[in-house]
C-alpha cells in the first residue's frame, strides 16, 4: 500500500502513552500512584501533581469501588498477577463519577520475584455501565415477577388439595404433595378426602395432563365433579363415568387420570372399600403376612373416550391393612433411564408396620433421593391404614 508522503510512518511512544484512547496508571504494589497519562487526567480532572507520589489508587474510587478494590482487585493481582474487566467508579476532584473498566497486571522483579509495579489500563465505561444497570434492573424485575408467579402458583396449588386431612376414627390417613422442580409452576396432581355420611368417606387422587394455570382449571373441575357426583352415586366407577362425561364436553380437551376409593365402615369395625381407576396407577395393598399386591383393574383414561369403561373392585379391610395411592410422579421417577417403579413402592410398603405418616414421608424421601432431588414431575401420595 502506498501512503501519502506526509502521512506518519510511526507513532511517538511518549505521545502514544499520554494521548492513548485509554487511561494509563502505574502504582507501587501497595497502590501508590507513580505514573499517569494525560488521557486519565483529562477524563477525571485531576492534575498530575495531585496524584503522583501522593495518592493511592484506592483513594480515587467510590466507596463500593474501594471495597471491591480491597476484596477482589488487589487479591487477584497479588495472587494471580492480573485482574480483568473490573468495574470501578473513579470519583474526580469535583465529585463527578467516571464509570470505568480496569485491566491490570502486577510486574515482578525478574530475579527476586518480589512485586515491583502494578500497571493498569482504564477504559471509559459510561455507556456500558448504563447498559449493565439496565440489565441489573431487568434481572431484578424478572426476579420479582418470578417470585410473584411462584406465590400465585403455590396459592392456587393449595386450593387443589385439602389444607388438612379429616380425622376419621379407625383410619390412619396421611397425604403428601410435592411440586416438581422449584414449585414455580402449578402441577396437575390432586387429592381429596371427604365425607358422604357418618360412616362413608371418599378418597380421590388424580393427575391432570400438563401443568400451569390451564391444568389447574381442569384439576379444580375434576375435584368438584368428583365431590358432587359422589353425593349421588356410591359407585366409584359411576363417579368416574360422570367425570369422563364432564371432561368430554369441556372445551379444553385435557386428559386426566383418577383413582376413587370409597370407604364405608363395616359392622365389625373394619372397612369396606370400593376402588375404581380411570387410567390411574392402581393402589398398592398390604396385609400382614401376605404378599403386597395391586388392587383393582385400570379403566379408561378420563376425557379420551365418549364412553369409558370403569370397574368397581370391592375389598374388605381389616385392622393393620395398608392401602397406598400415588400419582405417576412416584412410579415414573427416574434415575437415568431407570424408573422407580411399582416394585419399589411395594417393597417399601412391605417393611415393618408404621404409621401412615411415616409411610408417605419415607416413600417420598426415597423417591426424591432416587431422582437425585431433581424432580421432573409432581408427586402425590396418600396412605390409608386401618387402625382401630
Amino acid at each position: 500500500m502506498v501512503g501519502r508522503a506526509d502521512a506518519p510512518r510511526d507513532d511517538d511512544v511518549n505521545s502514544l502513552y499520554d494521548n492513548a484512547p485509554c487511561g494509563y496508571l502505574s502504582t507501587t504494589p501497595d497502590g501508590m500512584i507513580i505514573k499517569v497519562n494525560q488521557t486519565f487526567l483529562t477524563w477525571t480532572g485531576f492534575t498530575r501533581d495531585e496524584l503522583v507520589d501522593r495518592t493511592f489508587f484506592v483513594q480515587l474510587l467510590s466507596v463500593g469501588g474501594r471495597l471491591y478494590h480491597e476484596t477482589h482487585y488487589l487479591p487477584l493481582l497479588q495472587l494471580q498477577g492480573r485482574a480483568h474487566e473490573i468495574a470501578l467508579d473513579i470519583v474526580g476532584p469535583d465529585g463527578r463519577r467516571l464509570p470505568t473498566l480496569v485491566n491490570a497486571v502486577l510486574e515482578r522483579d525478574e530475579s527476586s520475584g518480589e512485586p515491583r509495579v502494578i500497571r493498569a489500563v482504564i477504559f471509559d465505561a459510561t455507556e456500558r455501565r448504563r447498559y449493565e444497570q439496565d440489565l441489573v434492573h431487568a434481572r431484578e424485575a424478572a426476579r420479582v415477577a418470578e417470585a410473584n408467579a411462584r406465590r400465585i402458583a403455590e396459592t392456587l396449588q393449595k386450593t387443589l388439595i385439602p389444607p388438612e386431612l379429616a380425622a376419621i376414627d379407625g383410619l390412619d390417613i396421611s397425604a403428601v404433595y410435592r411440586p416438581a422442580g422449584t414449585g414455580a409452576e402449578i402441577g396437575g396432581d390432586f387429592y381429596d378426602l371427604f365425607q358422604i355420611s357418618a360412616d362413608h368417606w371418599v378418597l380421590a387422587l388424580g393427575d391432570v395432563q400438563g401443568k400451569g394455570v390451564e391444568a389447574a382449571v381442569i384439576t379444580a373441575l375434576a375435584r368438584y365433579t368428583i365431590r358432587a357426583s359422589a353425593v349421588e352415586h356410591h359407585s366409584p366407577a359411576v363417579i368416574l363415568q360422570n367425570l369422563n362425561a364432564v371432561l368430554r364436553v369441556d372445551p379444553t380437551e385435557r386428559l386426566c387420570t383418577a383413582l376413587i376409593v370409597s370407604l364405608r365402615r363395616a359392622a365389625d369395625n373394619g372397612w369396606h372399600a370400593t376402588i375404581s381407576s380411570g387410567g390411574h396407577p392402581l393402589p398398592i395393598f398390604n396385609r400382614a403376612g401376605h404378599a403386597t399386591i395391586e388392587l383393582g383393574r385400570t379403566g379408561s383414561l378420563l376425557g379420551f373416550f365418549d364412553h369409558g369403561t370403569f370397574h368397581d373392585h370391592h375389598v374388605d379391610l381389616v385392622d393393620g391393612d395398608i392401602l397406598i395411592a400415588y400419582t405417576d410422579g412416584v412410579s415414573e421417577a427416574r434415575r437415568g433411564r431407570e424408573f422407580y417403579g411399582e416394585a419399589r413402592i411395594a417393597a417399601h410398603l412391605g417393611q415393618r408396620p408404621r404409621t401412615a405418616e411415616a409411610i408417605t414421608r419415607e416413600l417420598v424421601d426415597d423417591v426424591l433421593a432416587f431422582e437425585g432431588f431433581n424432580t421432573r414431575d409432581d408427586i402425590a401420595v396418600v396412605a390409608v391404614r386401618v387402625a382401630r
Partner: protein
Amino acid sequence: MNPIDRNHVRVTGNPAGQPMMFAHGFGCDQNMWRLVAPVFESAYSVICFDHVGAGNSDINAYDSARYSSLDGYATDVLEICAALDLTDVIFIGHSVSSIIGALAAIREPTQFAKLVMVGPSARYIDDPAAQYIGGFSVTDIDELLASLASNYLGWSAAMAPVIIGNPDRPELGHELTESFCRTDPDIAADFAQVTFLSDNRDDLRKVTTPTLVLQCKSDVIAPVCVGEYVAEKIPNSKLVILDATGHCPHLSAPHDTAAAIAEFIGERSSN
C-alpha cells in the same frame, strides 16, 4: 450434610500438630491464605475451608435462612471442628471471618485456644449516637452493595471461574486457576449484606479466648480506629499494627503477617 465436603475443608501440615484453622473473608476463598498458611505446616495441622458459596464449597448447601446472620457461618465453623474432632484450635479469621471466629469461640470457648483477627470490624456503619466510627455511612454501604451487583454482572451470571490461569507464576499451583475467587453472585450479595450490616459490638466483651488483632496501618475497609476498638473491647487481647497497606496483609505483607501470628501463638496463654 457433611461439613468437610460442604466447606471444601482441606487439612495439610503436621497431623500431630495443634490445629490452626484459617477462614477467608468476604470476596475470595481459602486461596487467600496461600502465602501465609504454608508457613505453619511444619509444626501445625493446617485447616483451610471455603464459606458456603465461595470457592469449591457445595453451593447446594446454601440456605438463605441459615446464612442470614453470621451465626450460621459460626455454626459451620463449629461443625467443621466437630467433624475433624478438633480441640485447642487456633482460629485465624480475615475480616468478617474474624467475627465469625469470635462468635464460634463465644459459643464453644473450650474448643479454641487462640483467636487471630486480621482486619476485623465489629460494625462497618458509623453510629454517631454511640460515638462509634465504623468508617462507612449507610449510604456508603448501599452503594457498596450496588457496586458488587454491577461487578458480578460484568464478570459472569453463573458460577464460573473468573480468572484464567497465570502462566507467569506456576508456583502458585494449577488448582488456583480452577477456583480462585469463584463466587456465586447471589450468595455473594447475601454475604455482603450480612457482613456489612452486622453489628457485633456487644459480642466482643464475651470473647474469653486470648486474641490477637492484626491491623494494617492504612486500611480503607477497616481503619485503624476500628481495629483499636475491637482490641479494646475484647478482654484478653493484643493489637499489632502491621506496616502494611490495604485490607489483606496476608497477601500484601505475608511475611510480616505470618511473623506476627507466629509470635502470638508461640506465647504462653496468659490465662
